[in-house]
């Protein structure tokens, strides 16, 4: 078995003259919750899109779930779950229809879909909303559902792009409980966020500034290194260096 769920070396992505991701190297261990932090425009989403096989790297090497990001993107897609920044379920499909669609796409056997859907709805306390259109759900519920759909097929890694943006604190707490549960099931979690309290929940975090990774360690070590009390302060110290404007 491979040691790392994600292993990236000297990854760079350029758009014309603009270097969105500048020579980053890092790895994520299997089963880890990895926080991928950075200000708006630091290059987080671009880097994540490369890892998910949605974008080609300009240079650099990397593997995700043991597959090469440059040449084996379709294999990667079978082993990951992805929840994008924009809302990623179909608004005009019902809750159960969304679950069934993505389960089917990822090859969950037909006869398993139905019972596992019921089970999922029960754990989420969603059974009454089974036949609601997704467009009718409040944002927090949508996000929880989208996350559940992203890990329904038990992927090796799940990528979450700002999953808790615009969600109330209580729902965010529940969301992180779900992330821990997924992690306990052995799913590696790769998450970007703007909330520094959430960064504290991660096993390790990296902080990107202007396309480069400026720091990468456990939240505790980072706080000790910068002699501050919270991740928020660590982030300010690093993000202040940014010269790039959005």
């Amino acid at each position, binding site marked *: 078995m491979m040691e790392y769920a994600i292993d990236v070396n000297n990854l760079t992505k350029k758009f014309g003259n603009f270097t969105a991701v500048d020579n980053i190297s890092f790895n994520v261990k299997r089963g880890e919750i990895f926080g991928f932090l950075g200000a708006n425009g630091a290059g987080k989403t671009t880097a994540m899109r490369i890892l998910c096989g949605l974008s080609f790297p300009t240079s650099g090497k990397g593997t995700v779930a043991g597959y090469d990001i440059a040449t084996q*993107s379709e294999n990667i897609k079978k082993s990951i779950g992805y929840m994008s920044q924009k809302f990623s379920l179909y608004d005009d499909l019902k809750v159960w229809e969304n679950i069934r669609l993505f389960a089917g796409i990822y090859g969950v056997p037909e006869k398993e879909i139905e019972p596992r859907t019921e089970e999922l709805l029960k754990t989420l306390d969603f059974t009454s909303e089974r036949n609601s259109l997704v467009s009718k759900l409040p944002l927090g519920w949508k996000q929880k559902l989208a996350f559940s759909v992203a890990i329904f097929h038990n992927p090796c890694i799940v990528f979450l792009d700002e999953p808790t943006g615009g969600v109330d604190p209580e729902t965010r707490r529940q969301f992180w409980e779900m992330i821990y549960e997924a992690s306990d099931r052995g799913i590696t979690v790769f998450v970007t966020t703007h909330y520094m309290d959430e960064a504290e929940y991660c096993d390790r975090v990296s902080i990107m500034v202007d396309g480069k990774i400026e720091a990468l360690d456990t939240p505790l070590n980072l706080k000790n290194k910068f002699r501050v009390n919270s991740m928020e302060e660590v982030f300010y110290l690093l993000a202040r260096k940014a010269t790039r404007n959005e």
Partner: protein
Amino acid sequence: MFRYLLAKEFKQFKRNEFLPRLVVMFPIMTMLIMPWVATLDIKNINVSVVDEDNTVTSRRLIEKIGSTQYFEIKERAITYGEALESMRFGDSDLIVNIPYCFEKDIVTGQGSNVFIAANAVNGTKGSMGSGYISQILESFSREILPEPASKNSDAVNISVISKYNPTLDYKKFMIPALMSIVVLMICGFLPALNIVSEKEIGTIEQINATPVKKWQFILAKLLPYWIIGLFVLSICFLISWIVYGFFPAGNFITLYTVTLAFIFAMSGLGILISNFSQTMQQAMLVMFFFMLVFNLMSGLFTPVSSMPEWAQWIAAFIPPKYFIEAMRGIYQMGVGFRDLIPQFIILLCFGFCFNLLAIVTYRKRS
């Protein structure tokens, strides 16, 4: 995997507030209204008469002109100049000038000249109008001329039989072509707009991050519209039969087979457009451009064979040209499949090219 995608498309189509109504109303409105208005039959030509003779004969001629459905006597001008003025203001399309001594010249057997001036801003209207008037004058002169002369002029008898459209009904020419346009709009453009809307909403990114193959995604988008296209065509048949009593002379299997090839080609083109469009607006503008070219160059209104040679070459690369040819052939002449094999094969070729390009240019990664 594919059937889940297909089920999704059907559900989304069914839940859409606009699309199901569109695919029913669009063919109905087109078939009920367009055959009446898209006509090159010239009627109600406004005539200004300058009667310098003012005799029984000249008045008989004017009456004869006014009694047809083509002409309406709008004005009796005193002078030619006055009539010209009214043409300049757009009040009359045609001036008939009956000269002084008209009756006398005819009675004395000298023959007379009637002067016709046509407003040719609209070339067709002008030439058709003066053509009709000449016919009327000819039959008029035959009526009033003494026997021997008329016998002379009838030395050669011309008789014309209109084949395939005996009543020379322009609607019968337009209906099969209008059906082609309806099918083109529904099968070519709707799936493309559907894909671009997924781009705008952002759900396409979610699909691109899954192992769904390009051809699966595209085929799932197209298949529902292929079925809808055949359904819409059937509505058109029904209307053309019930409202216009116009039934295809050829057989339905040929019709549907050729239609399938056309749908295949046009939906491929639609997907190709969607691959290069980021927004609905962009896709719509490109489609407008194609629609304009298709409408004017496919032989829908004007025969391709009367276009300049370079334009005929362009028309050769327009798929609707072949489909409209085939539709008219089947509908009006009852042409069998064997005679349509060239059109069928060309449409299939377009289909393969467009769809292949569409799959190649569809990017799951940027």
